[in-house]
Every structure is written in C-alpha cells, then in structure tokens.
C-alpha cells in the first residue's frame, strides 16, 4: 500500500474559484468560490435547487455531458480538474476525492456481495491481489464499525440495514484514503438515531485519517454540530460563508437568517376537550407469512400490534417513530385502506363493521394527506379535477356548486383562483402539498390524517405549510393525526404525542411531558439523537 506523497505542502485540499456551471442556456451555479483546508469539515447549505449538489458533482466532473463551465477553476489536491483528461480524472476520483450519496438503498449494486463491491475499488486503484484485498476489505469494514465484518463480506445489500449500507458506502469511499470526502446529504434518508451514529463515525474517521469533508446538507442542525466552516447557497449563488460559529451567531444575509429561523415554531393553540371524536381500541395490522405448497400461515409480521388511541375535536395528535415502526400502516388501517383488526369508533360508529358503500359516507369525514407532493397528485388531471373528485364520489353533481367549493378550498389553502385549470407539474413542491390539502379539505372533513406532510419540503416551505395547517385547524375545528419522524415538527404542532416502536406504543402523553421528561428509554434515545444532545 503506497501512501500518497505529502511532501507537497498544500493546506487547501480543494479550491474552487469563480465557478459557474450551465446546462444549455440556464446557469445553475454562478461565480461560486470557496476552499477547504486539510482535515476540516466544510458544509454547503441550501434549499433544494440551490445548486449545491451540482457544485459538488463538478468537483469530480461527474455532471452529465450537457453541462458546461462558462468560467472558473477547480483545483483538487493541486491538480486542475477542468484541464484534466478523462484518464487524469479517473485517477483522481476515489484517490484524491471520493463521494458518498444520499440514497444508500440505490447506491449499492443489489446483485453483488459487499466483498465484490468493496474489492472492485481496491482492484481499480491499488491492484492488490486476492488475498490482501480480502484482508483490506475486513480492515475497512472494521474501520466503519460494522459488527462481524467477516460475515458481512458475503452479504448482499438487501441483507443490511440502511445505516449499515451507508457504512459500506463510506468504507468504499475511504478505501484509497482520499484527501477529500464529498458527502451529499449522507444522512437524509436515515432515521435520527442512525443519522447520529453515521455522523459520529464520519467525525471519528476524520480525526483518524485527517481527510477533509465537503458536507452537503439542508439540515442546519447537522451543520451546527459537525462542520467547521459553512457556505450558504441560494439560486446558484454563494450568499454567505464563514466559520460555523460566526454564521450561526451573527448571520449577515437575509437568506441565511431566514434559514436559521426556519426551525418550526410552536403553533399549538389551546383546545377544549369534550367527547373523543375518534376512539381506537386494540388495533392490529398483521401481515401473514405463508409457506409451503398450500400457503399455510405459520406466522405474522405484526406491523401494528395492539394500539389504542383517542382523538378529540380540534386536537393534533403527533405520532412519532422511526421508519418501519408502523406509523403509516396504522393510519392506512384506520382509514380501512388495508385490512386490520380492532375497533375504530368514529362518533360512536364502528367503522370496522361497515361495508364499502357505508364506509364511503364516512370517508368525507376522515381524510388523508400523503408525504410525497409529487406522487400524490395524478399528473394527468387538472387541479380542478383533482379537487372535485372527492365531491363527485360523494354524489354531488351540480357543476356550479362543485366549482364554488373547489374555489373556496383553493382559497383556504392560499392558492390563486387561476390555479384551477393548471396541472400539478406546473407547481412547486409546497404548492402541490397545498393542492393535496385542498383535495382533502373540500370534503369538509372532521379528522385529517397527515402522513409526513412536510418531510419532502424545504425548511422554509415546511414552516409555511405548518402555519397553514394551524390556521385551518382553528378555522374549521379540525382534528389532526400528524405522522412524522421529525421531532422538531411534532413539538411545534401537536397537543399530544404518541411514540411508536415496532408497531407498539411505547409512550404517550402531552407534548410538553414527552419532550421535557421522557420516561421510556427509547423516547430518550430518540430525543437525544434528534438534538445531538449527547455530543454536548
């Protein structure tokens, strides 16, 4: 193993000068300059579409062919990247700088074992023989703290958890001990507890190997705790940069300030409790596991197991849990979109005993808004068709009346009248989510189930949507069941919180109780990870 010759004293691993990147005539990165010192973590912050990923990809020249660079230069480890031939770039990639991506599910090839994918990097760049490759693979897996690395070598990606996959990705990126590690939203797809582990791992690896990290993220909380320097990007421009301490205590630019203030504020209002609107007893969603020729059921996956809850009018009940805890399954079961057992009393009427036609009448009282504003609207229907569909199902056929209701609900969610004839793809993510809310709202529901309604949105947009939801709740006395993995959101909107783990409720209580004095160890863990409390 040959270590790189570090006699060349360059304190900056990466220097980007006046970089512009254009796709066709559209310039998406404009005059961006920054540099990263050896062994430091530099965070590039911005909302989606601000050009941060494009900047990072251009460092490794990984952008598609239609990208052009009108001006600027990038110097990586003393080499001019722009002037480099394909061969030079291939040598740089993985050696001087390597990259980890957001989605650990898709960045690994599902058809190859971990060993094969790891050793590919080693073969390519170091030309090791078989035996030493295997040893090095184990060494790398130990480095990223994967338990039982020998056994994991033969594993396929689907056999590993999301966190473990991201660790493998990191191991691959570190295989050649690069000077610079580019981490593009490395923890966005992960649960908070896993996120904390991965970030801590990166930190310790940095201390051990002395590499610089270019961290791309939209999460300022991560920046605050893990980065040394930060640069804020807006619409392709670098609006502000400096040390993390400076920026966080004394932001100059308006945009930075708005980002810093985009943490959801508490918008909870007082509510009067009367009779519960929705009562759920011993609710179960079990998926049978079958085997053998006759498909006999031999066991169940208990996605939701014995959950009981109640919801009052005008109240927001937050449901918190990591991925796979059964949050979404629970609410889909409540709406009878999937088969379930247990009682669901809505206004003293047990929904579980209704047939499809009877259920249809109750559907207008119980509505749902989904997470993905891009997936939850049919791309082939105009906004009017999308919103009016529910009314037509409920048997309203007076065109004038329907149009009136559609317009009213568009007004309620703060969209202009002329949105009515447009199609979903003409709207931004936040506006789409408003359309999805309008679709539910037009039926005048009593209970609105919000399944991660803000997770796919930028922080500032998220704040607007939360304010809108709050406003609607007051105006129409709506009850919300608010599902999220984001604890700061839950804290801002819910009256009561229910913590779900593996389909079971581990703790429930008022928001204040849960956040200030969590009783269950799992809740404590979750809170710690979310606020990075353990680091301080």
């Amino acid at each position, binding site marked *: 193993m040959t270590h790189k010759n570090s006699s060349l004293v360059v304190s900056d691993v990466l220097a980007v000068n006046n970089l512009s990147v254009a796709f066709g005539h559209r310039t998406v990165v404009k005059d961006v300059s920054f540099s990263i010192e050896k062994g430091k973590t530099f965070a590039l912050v911005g909302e989606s579409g601000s050009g941060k990923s494009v900047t990072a990809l251009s460092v490794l020249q990984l952008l598609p062919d239609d990208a052009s660079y009108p001006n600027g230069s990038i110097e990586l480890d003393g080499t001019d990247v722009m002037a480099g031939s394909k061969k030079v770039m291939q040598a740089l990639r993985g050696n001087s700088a390597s990259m980890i991506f957001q989605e650990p599910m898709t960045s690994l090839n599902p058809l190859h074992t971990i060993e094969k994918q790891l050793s590919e990097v080693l073969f390519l760049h170091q030309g090791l023989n078989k035996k030493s490759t295997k040893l090095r693979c184990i060494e790398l897996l130990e480095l990223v703290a994967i338990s039982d690395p020998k056994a994991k070598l033969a594993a396929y990606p689907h056999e590993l958890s999301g966190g473990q996959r991201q660790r493998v990705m990191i191991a691959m990126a570190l295989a050649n001990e690069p000077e610079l590690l580019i981490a593009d939203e490395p923890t966005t797809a992960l649960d908070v507890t896993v996120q904390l582990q991965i970030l801590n791992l990166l930190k310790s690896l940095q201390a051990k190997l002395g590499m610089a990290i270019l961290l791309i993220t939209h999460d300022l909380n991560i920046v605050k705790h893990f980065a040394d320097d930060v640069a804020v990007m807006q619409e392709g421009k670098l609006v502000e940069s400096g040390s993390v301490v400076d920026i966080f205590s004394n932001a100059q630019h308006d945009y930075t300030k708005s980002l810093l203030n985009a943490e959801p504020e508490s918008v909870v209002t007082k509510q009067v409790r009367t009779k519960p609107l929705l009562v759920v007893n011993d609710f179960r969603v079990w998926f049978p596991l079958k085997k053998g020729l006759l498909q006999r059921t031999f066991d169940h996956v208990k996605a939701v197991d014995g959950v009981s809850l109640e919801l009052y009018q005008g109240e927001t009940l937050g449901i918190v849990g990591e991925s796979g805890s059964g949050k979404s399954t629970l609410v889909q079961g409540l709406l009878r979109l999937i088969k379930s057992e247990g009682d669901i009393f809505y206004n003293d009427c047990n929904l579980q005993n209704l047939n499809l036609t009877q259920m249809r009448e109750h559907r207008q009282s119980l509505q749902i808004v989904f997470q993905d504003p891009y997936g939850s609207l049919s791309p082939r229907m105009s906004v009017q068709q999308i919103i009016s569909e529910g009314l037509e199902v409920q048997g309203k056929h007076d065109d004038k009346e329907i149009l009136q209701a559609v317009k009213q609900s568009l007004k309620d969610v703060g969209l202009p009248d002329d949105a009515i004839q447009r*199609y979903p793809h003409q709207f931004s993510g936040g506006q789409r989510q408003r359309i999805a809310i309008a679709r539910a709202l037009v039926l005048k529901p009593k209970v609105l189930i919000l399944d991660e309604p803000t997770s796919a949105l930028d922080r500032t947009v998220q704040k607007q949507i939360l304010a809108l939801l709050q406003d609607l709740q007051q105006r129409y006395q709506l009850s919300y069941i608010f599902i999220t993995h984001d604890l700061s959101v839950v804290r801002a909107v819910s009256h009561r919180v229910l913590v779900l783990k593996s389909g079971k409720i581990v703790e429930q209580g008022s928001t204040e109780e849960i956040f200030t004095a969590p009783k269950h160890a799992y809740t404590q863990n979750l809170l710690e990870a979310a606020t990075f409390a353990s680091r301080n």
Partner: protein
Amino acid sequence: MGWVTTWQRIKHNPMNQNRWQTFKNHKRGYWSLWLFSSLFFISLFAEIIANDKPLLVQYDQGYYFPIWQDYSELTFGGELDIPADYRDEYIQEIILDKGEIWWPLIPFSYDTFNYDLTEPAPSMPTLQNLLGTDDQSRDVFARLIYGFRISVLFALTLTFFSSIIGIAVGAIQGYFGGRIDLFGQRFIEIWSGLPMLFLLIILASLVQPNFWWLLGIMLLFSWMALVDVVRAEFLRGRNLEYVRAAKALGQSHRAIMFKHILPNAMVATMTFLPFIFTGALTTLTSLDFLGFGLEAGSPSLGELIKQGKNNLHAPWLGITAFISMAIMLVLLVFIGEAARDAFDPRKDCQ
C-alpha cells in the same frame, strides 16, 4: 361524463398536446399517417370507384342508381324479369337508346369476370385493366382496392377488440393482484401455448371461414399481446400515492382503474397498437396466401400473392401484391415509430 367532455379533457391535457406536437415533428410518421388515412378513406368508397354497375343511369326521364338498388331488365325495356346486367352489350344498347350511363372510374368490381379479353387470363395491364387481370380474368386494380379495404378493416377490428380484452384482463390482473393475477398468468401461459395456425387449419376443414370466423379465432389468441404491459402498469399504479388518495376519497375500484391508472397504461398501449395492427394485417395476408383465410373469391392481398406465385409468367400479379403490401407495412411502421417517439416517457421529463 360524456364522450365529448372526455375527448376535450384528453385533447386539452398539455401532456397530450406535447405528444401530438412530437408526433407532428416526426415528419415521416406524420405524413405516413395522412397518406395511410387518405388511402383507407378512399378505399371505404370502393363501390363507387370500382364497380361493374354504373353510378347513375338516366333512362326515359328517370334517374336510376344501380349501385344501391337492383333494377329488373324490364325497367329498361328488356325482355326478362331478371336483374339488369349493365356489362351486357344488349342492355347498354337499350339504355343508351333512351338515355345515358355514367360508369365508375374502374368499371369492374372485385368479382367481375372480364369476358372481353384479347389474350388468355391472366392478361397484361392494358388501358382497360390498369394492372392487368388475374388468372380468373378479374381486374387486379379493383381487387386491390377491395382487398386493401378488407385487410385494413380486419386489422382495425381485430386491434380494437384485442386491445379492449387485453386491457381489461391486464387491468383486472394488475389491479387486484394476488390470486386473480396468479391464475390469470398461468392461464395465459397455457393458452399462449396453443398453436393458432393448426386450430385455423382444423377449423377451415369444418366450416367455411369468413371474416367474422377468422376475426373470432384470431381474437382468441391476439388479446394476450397487451396483457403483460397493462398488467405491469397496473401493478405499479395501484401503489401510487394518488391512487391511495383516491381510495381514501371513497372512489370505487372501477373509477380508480379508469381515471387514475388506465391513463398511465395507455402510454404503453398506444405505443404497441400500430405494431399489433401490422401484425394482424400480416397474419391475415399469410392465412389467405396459405388458403386458410377468407372464403374463395374474396378480394385479398394474400390471395393475390398466391396467384403471383402460381403465375410467374404474369409478373404484374406478384409485383402489385408486393408493392402494395410493402407500402402499407412501411407506412404503418413509420406511424408506429412516430407514436413510439411521441409517447416516450423520457420526453415527458424534459
């Protein structure tokens, strides 16, 4: 919702307008569509273009339309009470005596025997028989027009019915999944193993296959072409969030399938249609060529090819059949290409 409003909706959807634009930009395909549709439209009026009865007869102050109505010889002062044979010189004489005859462009129908040939059939192209006659002294051009019409009509009907059945079966399998899907797929696997050609041969010895018999038998097998793509789209579509949202609105299964998922599946379907159409055309032609197709005497391109093969000394038969088939298939392939490009999902993303 009425058909008109549905059509309006489809027409005004920007995505569809985009596709139509892409189709139009595909010059070759666009012109092929025009040419093919015009040819087909013209061939729909084959009776007016090529017929052995006059378009209009003026006789003794009265007007007669022999194409639409049979007249007795007595009407024109003949001697027998039989339908008038306008190609008979005697009838022509007595009509022209007191009036006028207007003939179609080609004064032969597909089954008219031309008894006035100066050489033995099949005869060379002449001014009277533009593409010559076949071995039963019938005008090739007339047969070509009628044959083209019946081929296209057959292919259209077959494509229409097989897509309706295919889409319905694929939709039900994909949407409901589970056991229905499992049994459906196994059935299709077994069914597609049946040899269609042998079935047709056996049938041809039992009944005299006509247009509808052939259509029915070919339909038994051709519906499977679309099932797989539609099923795949529905399997994917049923888990989309907007489909779940529609379920939460209380929308019925049928409405969800029609309004929400089917439009997605239509992209794949529309891309396939021109090729299914081409396939149906070729199948009919080859059956006719083998002699298991339409009843004897029907105008058909396959039969023309067979005659060309049997009468190599009369090259106008084979050449006519070859050129007309080639033009037809090439036009269809161009249309199919343009449709495929127009519905290319990668174009939608831009």
